[in-house]
Structures are given as C-alpha cells and as structure tokens.
C-alpha cells in the first residue's frame, strides 16, 4: 500500500516537473520538428522501433508501432541517421528552418549469406531502452525453432524465454512470472484474443506468415494497457506489401497455409490475406471403417487486413481474424472459435501529436452437443463478446520527453452457457447460466523522460473502472457459500462499480553503452477472470466478470535487472529479479463444479498469491551461430481461505527450475540446423497417501493440495532446413524443413492416475499417460 501511494506521488511530482520546465525553460527558443514514417523499401511495411539519431547532439528517438517518428530541434544543420538492424543505414542532412515531413524507406542490407539474419531495433536496444521485462521476438527467429509437428508457433517460442512457462505439455496456455493463464492479455492488432489455442492447446491461433511483430511484456506493462495482471502479448499483423504482389505458404504434415499480400494502389493501399487449415481428418476419411471415416477433426485460421494511406496525416487499417476448431461425428460434436475485428485510424494532429483511434470487436464462442434425432439431443453454447473503442496519443514534447495518454472503453457481454434439448424427443428443458455484462474503461497518461545521457525514467498513471451492466441476475451467498437469494438487475442498469489507480514507474541507469541497470514497479488490476479448474486449460473454460460477489484482482510487481552486452553486442546477457504480490487472488474450492452451474460464483474462494524469481538470459548471435540460453528460478504460491486448510500451497504450474537452450547453426548458406533442449521441474500435483473402502470401492485419502511433483520434464527438438539457392534477381524461393519433436522420445508424464489391478480389487498401481513420443514432421515452405 505504501509503495502504491509513493508511486502515485512520484508520478505527480515528475509530471508537474516536466510541465513546469517546459513552461519556464523552453518557451523562448522556437523549435522545429522533423517527423515522418520509416518503412521497409522492399515491402512498404512500417518499421517498428527504428532508430533516428541526431549525430551532432548525440540524441535520438525511435519510431512507434506505426513507424512514426518525431523529433523537435532548435534551428540548425543536422545529420540524422536512420537505422534498423538488417537494413542499410541512411544518413540525411537537414537545414532545419521550418517543420519538415520526411518519410524514409530503408533497404534490407545485403545478406552475409552464412550469417543469421535478424531484423530489429538498435543492436544495444536491450541495454539503452527504458523497457525491461519485455521479450521481443523476431519472426525470422521464431521460424528457426524446431516446432511440434512442423507448426511454427509464437507462443511456444515465447515459452523458451525466461519468466515464461508452459502450463501443461502441448498447451498454449502459458504462465508469465507465476501468473495464471488468464492473467495474459493477448491482442492481435489491438483486439483481444480470448482463447489463443487450437486443438486443446497444442497449436496457437497465430499464423506466423501473417505476423510482423510480437512483443511480450512480462512486467513493466505500459500505462496504455491494462486489464490483466501478468503480461501483455502484443501481436501485430503485417500491413501488406505496398510495392508488389507476393506470397508465402507451406505444406506440412498436419496443416497447410497460404498468405497473399499486395498493393491495391501502389505505395498507398495494400492488403494481406492468410489462411491455414489442418487436414488430419482427410486421413480419417480414407479409412474404410465407418466408425472412423465419419469423424471430422480440423481447425482453420483466416487473417485479413486492409490498409490505406490516405495522406501524410491519415492512415486507416482494417484487420480481422477468424478461426475455428471442430470435432464432430454423427453422434457428437464440439467446436470453438475466435473472431476479432479492428478498425484503426492514425491521425496526425500536428507533427508532434500522433494519435490512433481504434474500434474493436472480439468474440470467443464454443458449442457442443448431440445432433437432433436422439433422445439425448442437446446443444450447449457459450460465448463472450467485446465491443470497444480506444484513443491513444503520442505527444513528442521535446527530445527528452515523449508523452503518451489516452482512454479506452470496452463493453463485455458474457453468455456463460445455455443448454437445451433439441427436437420433440428430448427430455432436457432449457437450462442456462445467467448472462452478465461489464463495461471496462480506463484513462491513462505517461511520460518517458531522459535525464542527461545516463538516466531514462518512465512513469505513468492509469485509472481503470469497471461496472456491471444489466440485464442480469446475481445470486447472493451466505458465509457458507450457500445461495440465499438472488437480485435481478434491469436492462441497462449499472451496478457494482470497481475502480482504482494503477501507477507504473521505471528507471534505467545507463552505465555505458554496453551495460545498464533497470528497476520498475507496476500495479495492475484485473476485472475479468477465467473459471478454469483444469490444470491444462480447455476451450470450455468460462470467462466471468467481477460482480458484487467477486472482487477484482490486484497485483503489485517489483523488478530489478542488470543488462550487459559483450563482444560488440553479439552476446546479450541479462539478470532480472522480480517479486509479485496479488490481492484477491482467485481459486476454486475442492470438487468445484464450474460447467453449466448457475451458482458457480459460490465455487470461488479468494486469498493472496505470491510469485518471485530470478531470470537469467544469454543471447548470442556470432557469425553462423545464434540462439540463447535461459534459466528461471522461481516460486509461485498462494493462500486461499477455504482451500488446503488455509495453508500456503504452490500453484500447479509452479516450476522452480526452468531451463532452455536454443541453438541454430547455419552450416552453409543453403543448410541450417536447429536444436532446442528444455528442462523443467515437474508440475505440482496432489497424490493419494492413504486409502479406505466405502461401498466396496477403494477410496483414496489425499495429501495437501499440490504437495507432490510429477517427474521432471525434459525434451530435445531438432530440425534441419534446406533452402533454395539465394538469388537476388529471383523473387521466389523455397525451403524444406525436417524436424523431430522430442528427439530422444522421453516419455514425459502428462498425468498420473492410480488404478486398480484388474482382477485384484485390493491392489493399486500408478499409471502415467504421456502425450508424445518422438514426432517427426516435414514442411515445405515457399515464397514469391
């Protein structure tokens, strides 16, 4: 609490400070602004985080997520250097006597063909930037990591970095710094993706070919974002090639994909469409057994984006994503899917004031049932819809201060589940869990301020607000969590407001251009939560809002880190320590019934949670070899009233040791090999420690919750990639990738069950289920 108040005070002090300085010091000298967009010359894509450096003053700035930069200087002659890794640096001299709009295109540098090509921000950005606790993954790097069934996956790649852990094997649900799966805000072009996984979590919904940029904030979430306690995964789609029509695609063992992009009006408007579909069910259909060949099992994704540069001051982007998973046969079907849509308008009010307005829509739904014609016919549907708007402003006040402020509001509509019988024969009448709605809004302001050449301070204040909106029915519970009565709220009635400040403060002390120390404090609030009782996360998990019965969760996170680069920045290392404390942490009571239960709020219990850890990372990119080694030592625990006799217990995904090595070697320009080795402590589980007999059945007595561990998990993945001859005159190329997931076929236990020996009811044994032995895959990729 004290830190929270201190943070708000520091924020106010610094904010007032800069406004006074500006008012007093700088009014007298008129400055002019150089601004514009930085783009990739070969495709027209905006370059995010490009460096714009003024040589004479030794100061610089970077382009924002839309490639826009702005720098204000007193009149004079300046040489400005534009750079971005993997691209040729360009220098331009300006005689600054008035405001200038200067858009620039950088050309990709000639590839040293045997070196690993990475594109990105300044080579020592990890040291000098004000950010910490973030991971920015280059798309090309993600593609080089050997993948399960050949399916390149952004989220699985993130899990190889420190502080990010898997929840369960194969699952796309991930835990960031001890947070649970629902504490990650996943956004695709500003719209929220609620369930980022296909096929029970084995694959993510992001089609790598359509993605331009992926950034994961593990802490130090900017003040412009909120609503989740542990992380922000910001995924940006490519805008579409504005120069020429091009495409990429691939055929793999489990799915195929195709991406097409091109200009609609050269250099002004472009599109990109991307699709992916699995076809495991084609093999099922070829089987002659009718019990097998009338099963369908598939998923597909479709991404589409349109963007239009109206003029130098206005651009619009329209993006959409549509994905679905289906499993069905004549007796039963289950399916789920996500749809997201966003419309964005960038508008420059002035050369210093950049703004972006977003309208967004997001929907996650699932259904399962037995088709009509059966006595048991039923259908069960559930969904969650978001309708929202955001306004974000970047104000490039002066070379030392960049202000960001804005506001947002999203209306959430929750339909947690309705089951009904189908047809006349069905005995099932309609049963539904009450709908609910919430309006989540926020306003924020923040600044990134350079103090001298050695210190960068970032501070922001977010104020968030959440209120339920009728029509809905809320059940009221007594102290024993038994329902006593219910309250009905009319349509449009606002009730149960929650609100609070979320200060975010951080500082970077640049010791020299190779090393720095960073520290950061942030408070986040989460108003919607996931009712998830399974240890792996399934599509049937239900999102629910804060209500009179459920308080928002609040987290305070402190982090400190030391960043050091070696050997002209070809080796980046960092050590970060963090501590996170969560109030109103939610968990579910023993034997919780969450599916289709109107009284599921009575199954919740709350308390406190803690997570703390130490993250080590060594990233290398030396000539032909690249990759990283990451190790996280951490604990995540909670104490919830009503669970485990009110004693502290570890979260299921508490994995004290998490070690990954990623290695990539370009043998010759046409062949590269990659390997990944991971090791984690086994998940925490509850085992039986005693037994008795009741009703002729052996009945177990259990240990304290999560008192035991599964065996440790480790796995090696390898891949070999053959490429077509690189030829700068040809536009098209291909590569053939062979990979083996779990190369030494370690049987990693996914779950351990205790069973009775057949024929001997008194004897039991432990049996483990493992998901994957070695899984080989071949993928053929092409581009033109």
């Amino acid at each position, binding site marked *: 609490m004290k830190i929270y108040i201190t943070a708000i005070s520091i924020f106010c002090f610094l904010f007032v400070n800069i406004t006074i300085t500006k008012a007093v010091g700088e009014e007298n000298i008129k400055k002019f602004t150089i601004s514009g967009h930085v783009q990739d010359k070969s495709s027209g894509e905006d370059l995010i985080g490009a460096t714009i450096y003024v040589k004479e003053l030794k100061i610089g700035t970077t382009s924002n997520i839309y490639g826009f930069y702005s720098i204000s200087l007193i009149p004079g002659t300046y040489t400005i250097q534009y750079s971005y890794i993997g691209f040729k640096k360009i220098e331009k001299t300006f005689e600054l006597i008035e405001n200038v709009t200067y858009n620039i295109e950088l050309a990709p540098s000639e590839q040293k063909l045997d070196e690993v090509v990475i594109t990105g921000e300044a080579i020592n950005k990890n040291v000098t930037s004000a950010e910490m606790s973030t991971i920015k993954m280059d798309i090309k790097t993600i593609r080089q990591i050997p993948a399960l069934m050949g399916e390149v996956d952004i989220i699985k790649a993130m899990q190889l970095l420190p502080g990010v852990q898997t929840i*369960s094997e194969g699952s796309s649900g991930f835990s960031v710094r001890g947070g649970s799966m629902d504490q990650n805000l996943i956004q695709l072009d500003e719209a929220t993706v609620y369930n980022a996984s296909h096929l*029970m979590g084995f694959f993510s919904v992001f089609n790598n070919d359509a993605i331009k940029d992926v950034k994961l904030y593990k802490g130090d979430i900017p003040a412009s974002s909120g609503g989740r306690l542990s992380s922000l995964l910001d995924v940006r789609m490519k805008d579409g090639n504005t120069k020429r029509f091009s495409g990429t695609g691939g055929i793999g063992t489990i799915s195929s994909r195709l991406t097409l992009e091109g200009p609609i009006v050269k250099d002004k408007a472009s599109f990109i469409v991307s699709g992916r579909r699995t076809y495991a069910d084609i093999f099922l259909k070829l089987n002659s057994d009718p019990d097998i060949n009338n099963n369908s099992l598939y998923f597909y994704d479709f991404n589409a984006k349109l963007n239009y540069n109206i003029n130098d001051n206005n651009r619009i982007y329209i993006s959409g994503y549509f994905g679905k998973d289906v499993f069905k046969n004549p007796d*039963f079907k289950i399916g789920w899917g996500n749809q997201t849509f966003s419309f964005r308008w960038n508008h420059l009010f002035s050369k210093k004031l950049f703004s972006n307005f977003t309208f967004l829509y997001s929907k996650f739904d699932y259904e*399962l049932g037995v088709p009509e014609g059966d*006595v048991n016919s039923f259908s*069960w549907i559930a969904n969650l819809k978001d309708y929202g708007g955001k306004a974000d402003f970047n104000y490039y006040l002066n070379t030392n201060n960049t202000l960001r402020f804005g506001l947002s509001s999203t209306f959430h509509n929750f339909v947690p589940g309705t089951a009904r019988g189908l047809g006349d024969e069905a*005995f*099932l*009448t309609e*049963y539904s869990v009450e709908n609910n709605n919430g309006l989540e809004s926020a306003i924020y302001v923040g600044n990134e301020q350079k103090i001298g050449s050695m210190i960068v301070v970032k501070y922001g204040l977010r104020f968030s607000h959440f209120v339920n909106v009728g029509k809905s029915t809320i059940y009221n519970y007594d102290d024993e969590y038994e329902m006593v009565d219910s309250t009905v709220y009319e349509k449009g009635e606002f009730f149960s407001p929650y609100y609070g400040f979320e200060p975010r403060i951080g500082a970077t002390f640049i010791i020299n251009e190779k090393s720095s120390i960073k520290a950061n404090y942030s408070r986040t609030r989460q108003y919607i939560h996931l009712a998830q*009782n*399974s*240890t*792996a996360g*399934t599509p049937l998990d239900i999102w629910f809002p804060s209500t009179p019965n459920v308080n928002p969760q609040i987290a305070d996170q402190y982090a400190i880190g030391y960043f050091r680069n070696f050997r002209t920045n070809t080796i980046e290392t960092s050590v970060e320590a963090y501590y996170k404390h969560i109030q109103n942490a939610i968990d*579910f009571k*023993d*034997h*919780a*019934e969450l*599916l289709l239960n109107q009284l599921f709020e009575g199954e919740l219990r709350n308390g406190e949670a803690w997570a703390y850890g130490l993250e080590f990372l060594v990233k290398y990119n030396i000539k032909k070899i690249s990759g990283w080694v990451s190790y996280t030592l951490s604990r995540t625990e909670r104490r919830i009233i009503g669970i485990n006799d009110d004693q502290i217990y570890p979260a*299921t995904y508490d994995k004290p040791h998490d070690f990954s090595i990623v290695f990539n070697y370009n043998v010759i320009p046409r062949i590269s090999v990659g390997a990944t080795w991971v090791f984690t402590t086994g998940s925490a*589980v*509850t085992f*039986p*420690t*005693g*037994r*008795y*007999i*009741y*009703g*002729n*059945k*052996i*009945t*177990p*007595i*259990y*240990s304290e*919750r999560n008192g035991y561990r599964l*065996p440790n998990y480790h796995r090696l993945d390898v891949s070999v990639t053959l490429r077509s001859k690189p030829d700068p005159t040809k536009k098209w190329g291909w590569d053939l990738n062979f990979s083996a997931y779990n190369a030494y076929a370690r*049987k990693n*236990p*996914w*779950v*351990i*069950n*205790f*069973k009775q020996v057949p024929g001997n009811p*008194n*004897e*039991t044994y*432990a*049996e*483990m*289920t*493992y*998901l994957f*032995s070695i899984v080989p895959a071949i993928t053929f990729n092409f581009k033109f």
Partner: protein
Amino acid sequence: MRYIATIITIVLFIASCTEKIDIDVGTTYERFIVEGTLTTDTMKHGVKLIKSIDYYAIEQPPTISNAIVTIDDGVNKITLEENKEEPGNYETDENYFGVAGRTYLLEIEIPEAINGYKTFSATSELKPVAPIDSIRVEYIEKWAVWELQIYAWDPPTEDFYSFEVFKNNIEITDTITKRGISDDRFFNGNYTFGVPVYYFSSGYEPEFVYPGDTITLKMGGITKDYYNFIIELMDQTFEYRNPLFSGPPANIRTNISNGGLGFFAAYSTSYSSVVYQE
C-alpha cells in the same frame, strides 16, 4: 455434465499412451472411517467401522470391534449389535426401518482413540421420495447398451436421487460407484418421460439383459450432502482423470465428526420392476 466430460476424456484417451510408473507416495496418519446406511425398508441396517491404511497396502483395512453404536431418531434410541461373523459390522434388528421426515443421529464410541478422539457422531435427515410409476428397459443399438428409463413425477422441491439396480434379485450396482445418481435440475417439477437413469454395461456379461430377466430399480431420495458425497467419490475414484477436465484431486466430504471419514446416509426408497421383453 460429468457425463459429457467423461465422454470427451475417454475419446481423447484413445489417442495417447500409458505406462506403469513407480511413484512413492509416503504415508499419512490413520483415519477413522464409518460406512452407515439407513433406509425406509424393513430389514437389518448396517454401520461398518474401519481404519484407513497406506495407499499401496494390499490387505483389507482393519475393522474396529467392540464399539458402542447407537441410532437416535428423536423418538427412539437403539443400540446396534456387532455381527459375530463379520466383525466391524454393527446391525439393527430385522424389523427396524427409517421413517421419512425424521432426523437420525448416529453416535459411536470406540475402544481405542484415533487421532485423540474416541467418540464420533453424524446426523442425517431422512427425506421422502416420490413413487415410481414404471420403468422400462430399452436396447440402444447405436451404443450397444441397455438403457433403464424411469417414468415418475419429480416434486417441485430440490431433490436428489440414487439408483440401485437388481437383475433377478441380485444387485448389479454392488459397488457404490456403479450406481446411477442424479439431481433434478433438468426436469424439476415435471414428469420424467423415460429419463435414462442407468446403463447396463455391454462389456460385462453379468450385466447383459436377457428376455425374461426381471429388472428392479431401487430409487433413493437422498439428501444433498449424500448426493455430493457420492459424486465426489465417483470423481476421485474415476480412473481416467486428465488435466484437461479435472481440477486437483481433493478429499471427499464427510458427515462424520471429529476427523472421521466416510458417510452416514439415511434415505427413503421406492421400487419398481419390469420383466424385459425384446
């Protein structure tokens, strides 16, 4: 809804692989277990007392003899006699029966303390149950099972049911986890036109239904606590738990005091029989 999760779980399990593994689970302190059932039928009703054992132990749990076991229904208090041939089993006489509407108090005093306690008690309300109009057995071709369907009125109150099934007077649901169990959320206050309450397993010969077999359904009107107890017991002993659908395992509830485990259940019964014709 457990039914759906079960189906999905089994479907997914066909795809994955299993292997025996050695896991040392250690030991835990001894517990006192009570298994007591009292119904409205006129017969000997029993209460069984045992102690818990280590998880991997092969022997039967030890029974507790020479305990004093009494049942008090607010009108009479009777003492149960230990069965000489089956130690640990304490029985009422054969003319005793439970009365719907009364609340039954079970009290036990054991010769040697377990975890510092020698006396234990449990209470259960004996709720009434609706009569069954009729039952029907139908063979479902698609799944190769026989379905037992019930025709009865469910009262508008919140009711819970347990279903035990007999074939030619021999109980098929001899293990508690084989029973049918249901709440009334999907048909509360309505007539159940053939709601299925039990499926005869098609993989186990003693459960096959042949023409001419007499099938009897014993429906119990159980308390919510006993209903939850049976559901939790079924969940925790189900052999195919998987991380996708199950929460962490946890101990099953009890209505026995002082750290005891198990359950004392009192319920009314109604019966119906049918002779199966093809």
